């Protein structure tokens, strides 16, 4: 379970302070897909950063599978991200120097998986996400949809408990976006990966188990 309580994040801007998140609280069950809907600047990315331990809140707590992420030391937060977390960023954000296969392998090698397990897992993901034909392709030669699928495969390769996706469909057309969301949802459910997706793409709503409306750093509604 992912549980956030009274999470607040304030950024200094010049001499003033800007409240980006204010008393955000919600709870996502294991294996569920939570959707954070909100306009640009509503605090979605900051919220994901705080959940993933990329940023620290000034107030409140982030509890992921019984671990207080906000209380972890830098090294432990690194380990937490390495083992328990997967990220899918907007526009893929693959490592451009590595082929699709190598991108997917990366978190597995990082987590010291055996060669055999890496081979099997990568083969499974390439097959499952229909990426076999582009396995050896470099990111620059992939279509946006393929790049996002590779990014998703990389995000879930090491079997994390939580996948954070920031605008994963923003750079895709509606049909490709829906295909990707459908694949992400199906695979996450199969592998019981909790997903938190920040988006303003309302096409994804049918896949969500929980919908949170974020506006000016506050949760305005929960469905």
């Amino acid at each position, binding site marked *: 379970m992912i549980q956030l309580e009274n999470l607040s994040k304030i950024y200094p801007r010049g001499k003033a302070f800007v409240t980006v998140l204010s008393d955000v609280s919600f709870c996502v069950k294991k294996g569920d897909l939570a959707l954070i809907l909100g306009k640009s600047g509503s605090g979605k*990315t900051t919220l994901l*950063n705080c959940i*993933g331990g*990329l*940023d620290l809140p000034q107030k409140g707590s982030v509890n992921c599978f019984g671990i207080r992420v906000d209380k972890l030391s830098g*090294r432990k937060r*690194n*380990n*937490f*991200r*390495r*083992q328990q*977390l997967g*990220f899918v*960023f907007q526009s893929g*954000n693959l*490592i*451009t*120097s*590595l082929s699709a296969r*190598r991108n997917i392998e*990366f*978190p597995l*090698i*990082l987590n*010291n998986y055996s060669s055999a397990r890496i081979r099997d897992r990568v083969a499974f993901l390439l097959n499952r996400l229909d990426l076999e034909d582009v396995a050896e392709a*470099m990111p620059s030669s992939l279509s946006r949809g393929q790049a996002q699928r590779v990014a998703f495969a990389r995000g879930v390769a090491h079997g994390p408990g939580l996948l954070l996706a920031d605008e994963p469909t923003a750079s895709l057309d509606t049909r490709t976006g829906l295909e990707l969301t459908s694949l992400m949802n199906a695979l996450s459910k199969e592998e019981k990966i909790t997903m938190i997706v920040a988006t303003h793409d309302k096409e994804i709503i049918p896949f969500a188990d929980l919908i949170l409306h974020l506006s000016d750093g506050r949760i305005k509604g929960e469905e």
Partner: protein
Amino acid sequence: MNFSLWLKTAVAFLVVNRRTTFILCFLISFAIGTLVFIISLANGISDIMITNSTGMYSGQISGSNLPLSLRPEQLKKPFVKAVLQRFQIPSMIIHQERERPLDLVAIYPDQEKAHSFFYKKIIAGRFLVKGQKEILLNLETAERIGSRPGDTIIGQIGEHQYELKVVGIFQTGVDSLDRALAFCPVFEGLILPETWQAAIFVKRGTDLSSALSDFSRSGLKVDGLKPWTQLMPDLTQLLELNDICVNILVFIVLGVVSLGCAGAFAIFVVSRIKEYGILRAMGVTGLETGILICLQVVLMNVVASAVGVLAGMLTVWSFGRAGIDLSVWTSHNRYFAATALIFPRLSIGAAAIPPAVSLGFCFVAAAWPVWLVVSQKACDIISKG
């Protein structure tokens, strides 16, 4: 830590950005190749200065006041190329009622011609012939007593007088030789002193201190043997100065190149900083990120060093075959009195110092990009990138 992962990733980063990698490698290898050649050239200059200074007359080891009981053959060790025996006799030279005191050095002309450059410094007449009653005068003495080749002069040694034919006049450019020495062959009837001087020419690469120890160990009375480094402190200092200048040059050139590379590499890293941010987001630690960046710099440096050293060696080899003639700039320099043909010499230092210094500087060059990536939060890098 999975080192092979970082190594493979570093290689991939460099290969994908092959244009930048090539330019940086070219810069480093060009600097290293140039420095390998410059150090080899400096070695060659030092060699020729030593060769000129010792080969002219004194040899690499000089012996003075050696007893006649010690024969030149006894000094012929495996590392010795030649031992030239000389007898220095205080004498008076008389020509047309003009007198001049000097040291007459009785020599074996054939051996001298075979091993020293002295005979090349004759400016009028010819060199001495074995066993003849001949004399070779220095220019100053010849002018003072008004003598020219073909004249006959009197050489007075103690109570003995010898008629000697002037066959040549020499000028070496070395004060100690040009002021108060004259040469004659050892001839029949010449009364020799009880001691002799030795000019010992050793084989290339011989360590002079070990050579001297070898002489001492063999039980010979060789207290009078001294290496050229003691006899020519001016040359020793010049060579040390040469070394210092070259080392400073190595540091300056590589320092400047490294600064350029650091800037270029920082741009190289900044242009893909978002990827480093993603790696950090995936749980890659700051240390691992630093290692990844350093590995890229080290790999580039290793490849560039190998190419640079090879290019430097090839240049040294190609110039080393014909030599580089510096005689236009050294005609009035006594350290180049016999020859100014420089043969660049590759030494272990010449091949190792530039890559080693470059490797040291490459870590300095990596420090800035590492700091750029490690000092920022992953989320800031991603959002700014």
